[in-house]
């Protein structure tokens, strides 16, 4: 398309308000976070430049375990989300009566206020009267009430399951769209050649889904790494720090204890990890050349 000077100016005028907004509310705070991370800023203290002190301070055994935990938490959450979501999409892609209703029914966890869905999980995990504990007791699988959020190991998995639950609808709908974008004639050709359903799934559906699986995993990875609400509402990082991820730790340090400098150093570290994920994401998507590069 021939681009006139006036057209370019017009395009920039259209973009400018949104661009300025994002610059002020996202880019400036980002720069400010980096600057803050080299200072000892706190609620009371005047700001002094402290160089890499904050970074040196956070690399201790506790924080190392927070990083490791964050990665384990994210890994399991994303993997389970992808598995359940793809399974759901496969089921909902079947041409059976009622499927449009079933598709609608997958949406609530994603569309209702996240916090409210989490309260419901909070009740389900409730140690004295919660559903999960109650059902396990009724089935005779456990002898007394189980307070899932009171023990590190169960709380860890409880927060993962809730995060999976929140993320599954998006994965499902995305994978469903990806499945429906596969040209139907591929299946028809295979069918005429006598290929069975399982064969068609393994040789047509699955290979063609790989780019979408990778894209969705990367997007999900970023969202999960950033996940705050679920852990904060269910456990606030406890018990005994067993569900403290990097985001939770940052929040506690910065907003909870007003140690802005130390919090900012943690936030910078998160940004570095996220940038690496994004880089990997752009590289894989450009390699597979999915629809994102329109």
């Amino acid at each position: 398309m021939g681009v006139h000077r006036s057209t370019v100016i017009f395009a920039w005028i259209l973009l400018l308000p949104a661009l300025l907004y994002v610059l002020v509310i996202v880019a400036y705070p980002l720069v400010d976070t980096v600057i803050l991370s080299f200072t000892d800023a706190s609620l009371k203290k005047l700001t002094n430049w402290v160089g890499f002190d904050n970074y040196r301070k956070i690399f201790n055994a506790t924080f190392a375990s927070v990083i490791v935990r964050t990665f384990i938490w994210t890994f399991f959450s994303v993997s389970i989300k992808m598995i359940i979501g793809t399974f759901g999409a496969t089921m909902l892609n079947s041409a059976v009566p009622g499927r449009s209703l079933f598709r609608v029914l997958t949406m609530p966890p994603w569309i209702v206020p996240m916090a409210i869905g989490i309260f419901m999980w909070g009740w389900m995990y409730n140690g004295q009267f919660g559903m999960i504990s109650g059902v396990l007791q009724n089935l005779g699988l456990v002898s007394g009430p189980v307070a899932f959020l009171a023990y590190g190991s169960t709380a860890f998995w409880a927060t993962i399951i809730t995060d999976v639950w929140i993320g599954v609808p998006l994965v499902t709908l995305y994978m469903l769209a990806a499945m429906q974008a596969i040209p139907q004639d591929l299946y028809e050709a295979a069918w005429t050649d006598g290929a069975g359903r399982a064969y068609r799934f393994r040789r047509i559906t699955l290979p063609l889904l790989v780019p979408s699986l990778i894209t969705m995993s990367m997007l999900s990875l970023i969202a999960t790494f950033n996940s705050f609400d679920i852990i904060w509402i269910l456990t606030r990082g406890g018990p005994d720090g067993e569900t403290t991820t990097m985001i939770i730790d940052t929040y506690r340090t910065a907003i909870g204890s007003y140690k802005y400098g130390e919090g900012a150093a943690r936030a910078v570290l998160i940004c570095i990890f996220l940038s690496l994920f994004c880089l990997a994401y752009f590289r894989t998507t450009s390699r597979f050349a999915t629809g994102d590069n329109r």
Partner: protein
Amino acid sequence: MSHPAMINRYKWYELIGIYAGILLFLTFVLAPFVEGFLVSLKPLSLLFSSPYRFWPENGSFEAYRTMWISVPGFGRYIFNSFFISTIVTAVVLVLVVPAAYAFARFDFRGSGVLLGAFLAVNMFSGAVLLIPLFRLMRTMGVLNTYFAMIVPGVAFLIPSAIWLLRTYMMRIPKELDEAAFVDGASHFYTLRRVILPIAMPGITVVAITTFIGAYAQQFIYALTFNSKSEYMPLPVGLFAYFGRQEVVWNELMAASFVGIAPALVVIFFLQRYLVSGLTAGAVKQ
């Protein structure tokens, strides 16, 4: 000749397998809502009885009445949530409609990078930018106002709104605005009089998804930038209640259901547009 319909014909045991799979999947997705709803119907005595009972015998909607009193400020939280989401949606639309048009139509130098930069904003949700934003809001003296909860919310809803609307606008034939331009209409006139009316359904979808997004995600900023219950949106208001020792669970669940009702209504009426709108742009058609 193969008949497309025959491919998808299932044998009876396949059908059973599929329905079992769907049932299993939906059970996971819907269990908390079903349980939450049943809890909202149960009298407290039944809730705290052992052994656990799933079905609400003697169930009633009593909790939906009493929660207005025992969840203090509930009406105010609902109003705040709607108010914040409405303003956020309006601001997002004003910023995004022109930007999406620019990205959909003008392929100037740097437009690709800029689009990527907008999308990268999605990366920094949550606590990452909280510290400078908190300090900024404090310096400006707007902590504990609606303003502090609206401003960051807008920024993080811009990228997906641009993405969705751009995809929609790209489907509008280019000939339309080219013809108007040839006829002597200015770019601005073309956008306002030719594109906007045609793009209205797309803008509506973006408005709805933005509103739902604003309503659903107003937690961390509201939690951090506001401590006054008169400005609290519903999720934070209920969270304050949720954190107490003596939570009246059936009333909390009743309040939750009233709080999610708008989203459920939207899903019910607009699911067709939501599914297609939200997945468009995600995958090449």
